[in-house]
């Protein structure tokens, strides 16, 4: 790795797999369930969280020596809330339809436990560059799961990917639908997201036995 030292690279790569915030730490589940029925909102949510967590981690890290420890949680909250309001306003100004679709979930980034968790656990104790990498890595790990779940839910729930028909048109009975294939309506509902996340966790743990906790 020319650009990043091995340690730095691990900051990004770890959360993608063996320390994934969703599948290993099981954080940020609520938003993962709510917005993954389609791929487009999943990707937008992932990008928004990458922005908020990357920038937020740097800001918290820069301020880590001057934040009074008594009010540090409130300071973290203000930083997240500010960044989220910026994301929300920018979406409303430049991508109005999408901001309507994501509506309350953008606001819910504030309560995404991954963000406060990284601020508290990492950015308060490390320098800005490391914190930035850690933020990007965790947000990417979160986004990766979001996109995977969104992929399966949109494909089997609506028969489309990014809105493009994959299996043919269900109304005109073309493509696969001509042979009696039906979309699985359950895929579109939030419980199915939990099941898909569960399957990902299962697959991941059976491939890497180290991740299984001993009882």
């Amino acid at each position, binding site marked *: 790795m020319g650009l990043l030292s091995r340690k730095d690279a691990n900051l990004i790569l770890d959360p993608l797999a063996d320390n994934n915030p969703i599948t290993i730490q099981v954080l940020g589940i609520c938003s993962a369930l709510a917005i993954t029925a389609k791929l487009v909102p999943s990707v937008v949510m992932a990008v928004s969280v990458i922005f908020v967590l990357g920038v937020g981690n740097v800001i918290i890290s820069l301020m880590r*020596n*001057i*934040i*009074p*420890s*008594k*009010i540090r949680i*409130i*300071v973290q909250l*203000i930083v997240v809330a*500010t960044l989220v*309001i*910026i994301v929300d*306003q*920018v979406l*409303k*100004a*430049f991508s*109005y339809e999408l901001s309507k679709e994501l*509506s*309350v979930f953008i606001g819910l980034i504030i309560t995404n436990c991954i963000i406060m968790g990284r601020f508290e656990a990492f950015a308060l104790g490390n320098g800005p560059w490391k914190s930035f990498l850690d933020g990007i890595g965790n947000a990417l790990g979160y986004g990766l799961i979001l996109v995977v779940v969104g992929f399966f839910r949109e494909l089997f729930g609506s028969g489309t990917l990014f809105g493009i028909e994959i299996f043919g*048109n269900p*109304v005109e009975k073309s493509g696969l639908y001509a042979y009696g294939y039906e979309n699985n309506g359950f895929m*579109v*509902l939030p419980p199915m997201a939990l099941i898909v996340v569960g399957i990902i966790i299962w697959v991941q743990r059976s491939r890497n036995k180290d991740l299984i906790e001993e009882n």
Partner: protein
Amino acid sequence: MAINTEKNSYTVIFAVVMVVVVGLLLSGISQVLKPNIDANKRAEKQKNILYAMGVNENQGANDVVFVSDDILQEKFDTYITEQFYLQGGEKVDDPEAYLIDIKKEKKKAEDPSYDQKLPLFKGTKDGKDLYVMPVRGKGLWDAIWGFVAVDETMTIQGVFFDHKGETPGLGAEIKQRYFMDDFEGESFLDDGQFEGIAVAKGNNDPKNEDKSDNEVDALAGATITGDGLATMLRKDVQKYVPFFKSLQN
């Protein structure tokens, strides 16, 4: 740096400075983006009004696709021929009546001495005169609103509904095509008297073939949203009845 970050005075000063900085930053951003956001909101209203009139880019049977942004203004100017509002029985021309905020008007109308402004947009489509009315009411969780296009006999030619926070898969279905399309052809009148339109369960007409029953089929699992929608239509559309009566004469 030898700052004692544990001192109470430091904590208070830090909090104050932080709040001021964040406040300035956010209000600055809001000011910069406001023109863009307002333009988007205006465009959304225009799209919704056109959609209620049946001017859209639907292709598939379940599509709800609005007129695209680049031709929106042109279409709006072509199809909407007259904009005005009714206030205390008077018709007042207002070329930007679609910007009247129904929510604020309703608030003002709580004072009985105030006559609510009732915006109405007259349009022509396929040689037929249409009147589009904005409506606003309460669903289960939050506000629901929409636009209703009728001809001069108060028979619905098209509707558009939207909501702020109804349950996805249940109440949120009011903005789905299959629900909105059910309203087409229904009349607000029954034997010349205003009746409204009920969103009814078990009305023995699930395919909605009977267009004279003042009823559309309800959405399963969305009783309160449906009732709210029916109330919204009854209350808001009723205010326009004198105007349509005057058209008949």
